[in-house]
């Protein structure tokens, strides 16, 4: 195995309470002083990449992130988990990301360019979706742009000696197993929850991460290098109309017995 590319996203930490000012439209999600972390599904992707690297000596894991200056922290976490180097496509502070400007199509276009530039990429591992915009599109769009074989919602990945990938996918009706044949294109696989349990960096690995290279390039420069159009990249494909907090959950009813419970369920037409 040669290179495994792992795109990672810096998002609001999963444990944070989200605060929304709905009068501000898509900019209403409070980001100031909010703890940010690596998207949990991206963590799973990084972990899988490292496990594959451990099984295939000589493989290089490259973590890549598109975002503001602070993305270097997210990339460093990936390095501390065991990735070999990082690429940071740095956006200016006024680029909000998600909902507002940069969307999956733009990210996938950038990643396509990076895959082609890097050459020798055998696999792109992504999280199935991000926990902020929950689009789940970047992986499939990238596969489409590359004309590459893809498998989404991976719960298990096995690499064959011939360079193929056998992937168990989670679907609504059960697990489906598909094989991505080696075809000269990188396999594109998005990772789901059951795939693995990400390791937390050990102290020595945090120190080692400091010495691993991170190549930072501005979004403008990268766009130019890849022959893309900056305005196109920053113009969202979708317009977010409204962002609001879900209405507070209504209180439930307490019942005194199983009979009462059955009575209530029948009343609501939920059981015959």
């Amino acid at each position, binding site marked *: 195995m040669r290179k495994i590319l792992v795109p990672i996203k810096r998002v609001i930490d999963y444990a944070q309470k989200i605060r929304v000012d709905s009068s501000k439209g898509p900019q209403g999600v409070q980001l100031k002083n909010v703890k940010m972390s690596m998207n949990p599904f991206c963590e799973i992707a990084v972990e899988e990449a490292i496990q594959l690297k451990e099984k295939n000596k000589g493989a290089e894991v490259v973590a890549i992130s598109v975002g503001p200056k602070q993305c*270097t*922290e997210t990339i*460093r*976490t990936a390095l*501390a988990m065991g990735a070999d180097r990082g690429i940071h496509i740095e956006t200016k502070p006024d680029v909000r990301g998600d909902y507002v400007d940069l969307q999956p199509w733009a990210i996938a276009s950038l990643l396509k360019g990076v895959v082609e530039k890097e050459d020798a990429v055998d696999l792109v591992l992504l999280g199935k979706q991000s926990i902020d915009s929950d689009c789940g599109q970047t992986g499939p769009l990238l596969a489409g742009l590359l004309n590459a074989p893809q498998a989404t919602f991976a719960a298990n990945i096995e690499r064959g000696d011939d360079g193929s990938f056998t992937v168990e996918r989670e679907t609504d009706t059960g697990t489906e197993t598909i094989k991505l044949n080696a075809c000269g294109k990188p396999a594109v696989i998005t990772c789901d929850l059951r795939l693995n349990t990400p390791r*937390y*960096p*050990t*102290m*020595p*690995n*945090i*120190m080692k*991460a*400091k010495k691993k290279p991170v190549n930072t390039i501005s979004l403008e420069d990268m766009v130019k290098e890849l022959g893309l159009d900056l305005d196109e990249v920053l113009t969202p494909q979708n317009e977010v109309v409204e962002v609001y907090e879900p209405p507070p959950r209504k209180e439930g009813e307490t019942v005194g017995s199983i009979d009462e419970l059955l009575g209530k369920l029948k009343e609501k037409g939920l059981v015959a």
Partner: protein
Amino acid sequence: TVTPSSRTFSESISYPDESMDHSYEQRRLPVTQFTEDEEMVRDAARHWANEELRPLVREMDDEAKTRPEIVQGLFDHGFMGMEIPEEYKGSGMNFTSACLVVEELSRVDPSVSILVDIHNTLTNNAVRFWGSEQLKEKWLPRLATEAVSSFALSEAGSGTDAFAMKTTATESPDGSYYTLTGEKLWISNSREAGVFLVFANANPSLKHKGITAFMVDANTEGLHVGKPEKKLGLRASSTCPVVLNDVKVDTADILGEIGLGYKYCINILNEGRIGIASQQIGIAKGCMDIAMPYLNERAQFGTKLADFQGLEHQYAQIATEIHAAELLTYNTCRMKENGIPFVKEASMAKLYSSQVAEKAASKSIEWLGGIGFTQDLLAEKFYRDCKVGSIYEGTSNIQLQTIAKRIKDEYR
């Protein structure tokens, strides 16, 4: 009348972003703004503590025993060699990182954090500061990767009056080894220890100027670890007598110089107590972690407990004091890292943090009410665990003395 206690005034208007007004050289970062690496360290420790340690906390307290897999986990994750340089198989980090690990572990179990604290801030650092190259090469890799250490100073007759120790070290006729005889008491980590840093007097006629520090392998003939004390708190941390019956120690295993042991132990304890302050802050935060969600959830008379003004005032006070303790403690870490004298501040940090922890633990049980008094929650454990904070690594009275002496001198 209902006071609009949940209205937050500050969030409804925006302030100009002043952070870019000063040049980088003029800007000073807040003490609580840690580096990228330090934040990663904190996150890793928090994650490990919540995933691997938390499920075992109650059981280890009930059985008064630390599980071997927890000790192994501490080594595997690099928590045991925080400041040991990489060439000796350590993690090569700074003192603040070690304190952050201690704080995060304490937030889940102070019995485990004390093991990490003593090992890192007392033994490991003493070896790094005063050990010969040969001694460091022999012991640091073991300390970083597999041997828990104990700091064997106290005895039945000498706690605060550490220099009154009776354990002796007698030089062999050919001068190649010393024979240690005596009994140490109150020794933490002793059941798990692979190595003991033992303080013994090699020349009692010189009084404290004969005290010498020895590195003693736990398997050395004549060294016995006695039965653990049954304690109020920190129950999973082993606290045992350590008997030395003609224990032979090679002169190569003397830490630093003969007769300077008293200086080493005073100096290392001066900084080790910053680690204890971190532990106490972790305890206080651990109490808030239990109590605050409860206050936000539980209602009486149709009102969430967190919204009753009486409670608002109390938890605001405690939160303020925890924050003050944090600032005091981590500022002292930075002073130490920058070579600024910090003995007074270290004493203040330990004194104050242990007071805050005790208050937080006590108050949190009151806020939790009946359930806080049961073993269903860990609040009662924190209440028992925090008490030793005002006792070990220098009692609160001694801290007050230390601070007073310096204040007095400042005004002379």
